[in-house]
């Protein structure tokens, strides 16, 4: 009898283990902006949110953080450490950086603040210069990056306003070691990436009078490498992407393309760390054949470019404010002449050739069995000649477009499959379990310059901004499955989404972090204040 009971118990234990959703035992992470070093923005380990359950997605909690805004910046995308060992037990923690040199840790189960770290600064802001503007807000501008050292132990790396690199214990917010010299102060680094013990970032806009560079911080040797394109800034919103051989990619912005003079403005550039010297060296580049036109009209590279494998080769896909996609073979970025992509789409938008339109932020990609999808957001009306197989209404303010990569007769092409509904300034999407999470930021992106009757700069744009709306779309058809409607009451600028373990995070200019989640997750009723009553 005892043996039978033992067998039955074992059987039941196995059955229970199988029945418990995978997310409860294997927590997913979202360690870096854009989801992974390749910036695919694809959460591969999502199980709670499905195309069915997302229709019932609900607001789980929201928390207001006390970070001070700078120009139009406030909070950066939350990074998720799925399973952190704390003194109060295992917790799933969201690490949120704020532009005012703050880093916050949130218990995502409760929506409460665990700790806050404010970086002391060695930088003294002087009046004048290229500061105090939307392009150069000052403060902390790079989304940090998390590293999972071992089960339960995570480190957060962040760069403060003064350019120093901080290393924090995610469980406690404590400094693991004193901050290290890394970048010039008051620059504008973009989201950090971490690959094989090296932290990468890039800078743009020449903020603080600092030249625009790729940067690398080698954690083992504490050596910093830098490489400047000679022209143009490097401003991929979710940071540079890294290929499997360690090459780091970012597009250089408006500048001169004069390769005979080693000047690489208006180009997609790949640099790689020299393993011995730790210097960053130019590996390859691609400059569009109409780079001069792009420079003239400020249509430059500005989006993080995901990297992926397809039919045994590695590719990178990128875009710009011009509003078309370039598919590049990373083994030979622009072909023999550095001007020939593997494929170039027609214009999706920006018929007006306006620098405030086009693609902004980051692209995304995911593998659907044997189908490779590429997604991109864009601002402004759809180009009248651009068509997709499925279109969800007129696009006036922006949308997400999904392409399918195909190979026919050895030639690659990107076929537009669907265009989403209209979104007010569509922002970089994230894919999880066959769902595309996207949002319209609600931000006024009009860059007002001398024109009678208009207040320009951040002040004017803040007045004109409305509120963000989060959407869940069927990743194969673009059909809208869910919308946050009016639940999000403020807008955001230069931030993004994070998705992990049934939860979707978005933050806004008023300092609020919203957590929407699967219907099976418990909601916390009240809005909790973060760090300040």
């Amino acid at each position, binding site marked *: 009898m005892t043996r039978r009971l033992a067998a039955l118990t074992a059987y039941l234990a196995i059955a229970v283990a199988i029945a418990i959703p995978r997310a409860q035992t294997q927590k997913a992470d979202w360690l870096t902006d854009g989801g992974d070093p390749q910036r695919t923005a694809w959460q591969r380990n999502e199980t709670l949110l499905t195309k069915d359950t997302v229709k019932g997605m609900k607001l789980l909690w929201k928390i207001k953080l006390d970070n001070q805004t700078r120009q139009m910046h406030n909070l950066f995308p939350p990074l998720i450490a799925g399973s952190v060992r704390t003194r109060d037990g295992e917790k799933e923690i969201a690490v949120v950086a704020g532009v005012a040199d703050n880093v916050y840790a949130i218990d995502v189960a409760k929506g409460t603040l665990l700790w806050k770290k404010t970086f002391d600064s060695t930088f003294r802001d002087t*009046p*004048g*210069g*290229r500061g105090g503007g939307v392009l150069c807000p000052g403060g902390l501008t790079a989304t940090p990056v998390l590293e999972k050292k071992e089960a339960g132990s995570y480190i957060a790396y962040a760069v403060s306003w003064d*350019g120093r690199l901080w290393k924090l214990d995610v469980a406690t917010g404590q400094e693991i070691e004193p901050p*290290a*010299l*890394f*970048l*010039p*102060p008051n620059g504008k680094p973009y989201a950090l990436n971490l690959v094989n013990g090296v932290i990468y970032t890039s800078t743009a*806009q*020449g903020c*603080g*009078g*600092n*030249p*625009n560079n790729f*940067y690398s911080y080698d954690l083992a*040797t*504490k*050596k*910093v*490498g*830098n*490489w*400047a394109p*000679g*022209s143009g800034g490097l401003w991929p919103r979710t940071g540079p992407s890294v290929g499997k051989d360690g090459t780091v990619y970012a597009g250089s912005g408006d*500048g001169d393309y*004069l390769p005979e*003079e*080693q*000047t*690489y*403005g208006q180009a997609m550039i790949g640099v790689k760390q020299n393993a011995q010297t*730790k*210097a960053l060296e*130019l590996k390859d580049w691609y400059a569009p*054949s*109409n780079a001069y*036109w792009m420079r*003239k*009209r*400020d249509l430059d590279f500005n989006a993080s470019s995901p990297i992926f494998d397809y039919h045994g080769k590695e590719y990178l896909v990128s875009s710009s404010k011009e509003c078309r996609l370039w598919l590049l073979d990373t083994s030979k970025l622009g072909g023999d002449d550095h001007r020939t992509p593997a494929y170039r789409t027609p214009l999706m938008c920006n018929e*007006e*050739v*306006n*620098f*405030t339109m086009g693609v902004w932020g980051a692209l995304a990609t995911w593998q659907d069995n044997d189908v490779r999808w590429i997604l991109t957001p864009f601002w402004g009306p759809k180009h009248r000649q651009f068509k997709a197989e499925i279109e969800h209404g007129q696009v006036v303010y922006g949308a997400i477009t999904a392409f399918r990569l195909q190979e026919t007769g050895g030639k690659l092409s990107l076929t537009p499959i669907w265009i989403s509904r209209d979104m007010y300034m569509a922002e970089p999407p994230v894919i999880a379990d066959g769902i595309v999470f996207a949002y319209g930021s609600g931000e006024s992106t*009009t*860059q007002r*310059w*001398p*024109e*009678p*009757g*208009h*207040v*320009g700069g951040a002040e004017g744009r803040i007045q004109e901004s409305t509120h963000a709306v989060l959407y869940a779309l069927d990743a194969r058809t673009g059909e809208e499955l869910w919308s946050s409607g009016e639940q999000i009451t403020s807008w955001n600028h230069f931030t993004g989404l994070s998705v992990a373990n049934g939860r979707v995070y978005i933050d806004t200019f008023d300092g609020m972090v919203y957590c929407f989640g699967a219907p099976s997750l418990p909601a916390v009723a009240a809005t909790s204040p973060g760090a300040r009553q």
Partner: protein
Amino acid sequence: MNRRVACALACTAVAVSAAVLDGQGRGAVEWTTSGFDAQRSAWIRNDPRISVVTLQKPGAFGPFKFLWKLKLEYDPAAATALTEPILLDRLIGFRGFKSIAFVATASETVHAIDVDVGTTLWKYHINYSASPPPLLAGTPACPGGLSAALSRPTTVAPFAFAAGGGGREGRSGGGVGEPGRGATTLAVAGRGRGGAPAPAVAPAANPAVVPGSAAAAANLAPGGLPGGARQGGPGGAGAPFTPGADAAYVVGSDGYLHALNVSNGWDNMTPALFLPANTRAMGLVIATGTRGEATAYAVTTHGCGSQADAVWALDLASPKKAVVAFKADGATIAGASGVALGRDGTVYVATTDGPNPMSNAVFALDSTTLKPKASFAVPRADFVSSPLVIPWKDREALIVVGRSQLFVFDTATLQTGPVASASYGAPSTDSASGLASWIDANDARWIAVPNARGIQTFRVVEQNGQLALQPGWTSRAITGPLPPLVVNGVLFAMSTGTRSTPAVLYAIDAASAKELWNSGRAITTTVRGGLSAGGGNVYVPGADSTLYAFGFEIEK
């Protein structure tokens, strides 16, 4: 410091230099007034696309060619002349980045043209509002209507004196810092463009709406807000517009000076009465200095509007918009580009032949009061051009075209007469001539002047301690050539054309006189107005109100 770090610092310095030069390289050189600059040099030192090499043989940019033409006209029955196009290389406006040419028709409509695509961005028609009725049926000497090219703010500190211009970006490169010492760029942190605080410039007070003193001097009734002009509104980012700040300045035939918003053509300020009505205005230049001063200069010529020829100056920085004048007392002011300005702001003007005591003379005027500081009359010189000011060693020289000779004056000793002269042949058929001057690759200074046959050049040399003109090359035959311009070693000359033979634009190697290219039959009319150039293009205002653009096609 080891070699690796030193090398890294050098690379970093290059990158910083690039960041510094970025501000100079982007849109730094613009044709902002007749004859390009306040010195009327008609010379663009550097250009991103035009060079002898690219004109000679198509390269990465493809061939130099006709790009587009655009017919501009407000009233089909009105005069069809166009002014010399004034350029804005890069406007960051609410409709995006634009490169713009501002052109006005004689029938008083200002057009802003997107030069990358040859389309109109905006138009603004000046409604005549002076008391004397407008001159509708003029004569060749006094055609009526709008006659002076627009002007954008133009620095008095002459570009021609600068060591360089149109700076380029730097080279790529990088470095490695010492362990624990951060990036090599820390050594040069904050020193690039955008790192140093901007110099404080006190904005001028908001102007009161007061007619200029020119109205009283000309016995005209004071204007108020001219009919059709929109009340000046706020400037950039909601801030009040400071007269003298960037705008497309234009003076209508009613004598009112407008400052049009470059983005949309709105009046940035209440138009200021500047000149008498119905005169023939030439050479408008908005001259700016380093201390916030801004003065509009123009000349009125040929006795039009029953007014004696004069040089006029309007102090834009003053609340009252005070106007002063230097009257030529019956002499005729020479040239199509008005006055030229010296490095210290001195105003130079010349007069044609005539019985008047002020004829055949060159004058140096005080920049503020326009009172003569010096002058010299050359008997029977019959000056036909606006002066040209060039730097010469530690001083300046003034060059003026006479009926058959070029005359050179040392501006420091103007009152003692010319220091050199040279015959250049019979003058071109165009009544108002003009010069161009440039420095070649060997640092030699050149002058080009149109004559009846074509373009004649001279090298400016020193002989026995004195400045002299040495005959240079002579161009191929060009019928009725207009004043030329020079871009990055390429001289562009224009035949005016006739009823039966349209005008032709020529590109000539400024060092060798070799013809590099011509426009063939692309232009289908005559040309009378001034050429301009910039950003790889050359603009030709056709006499039938058609604006032509030549350059290298941009892949879009």
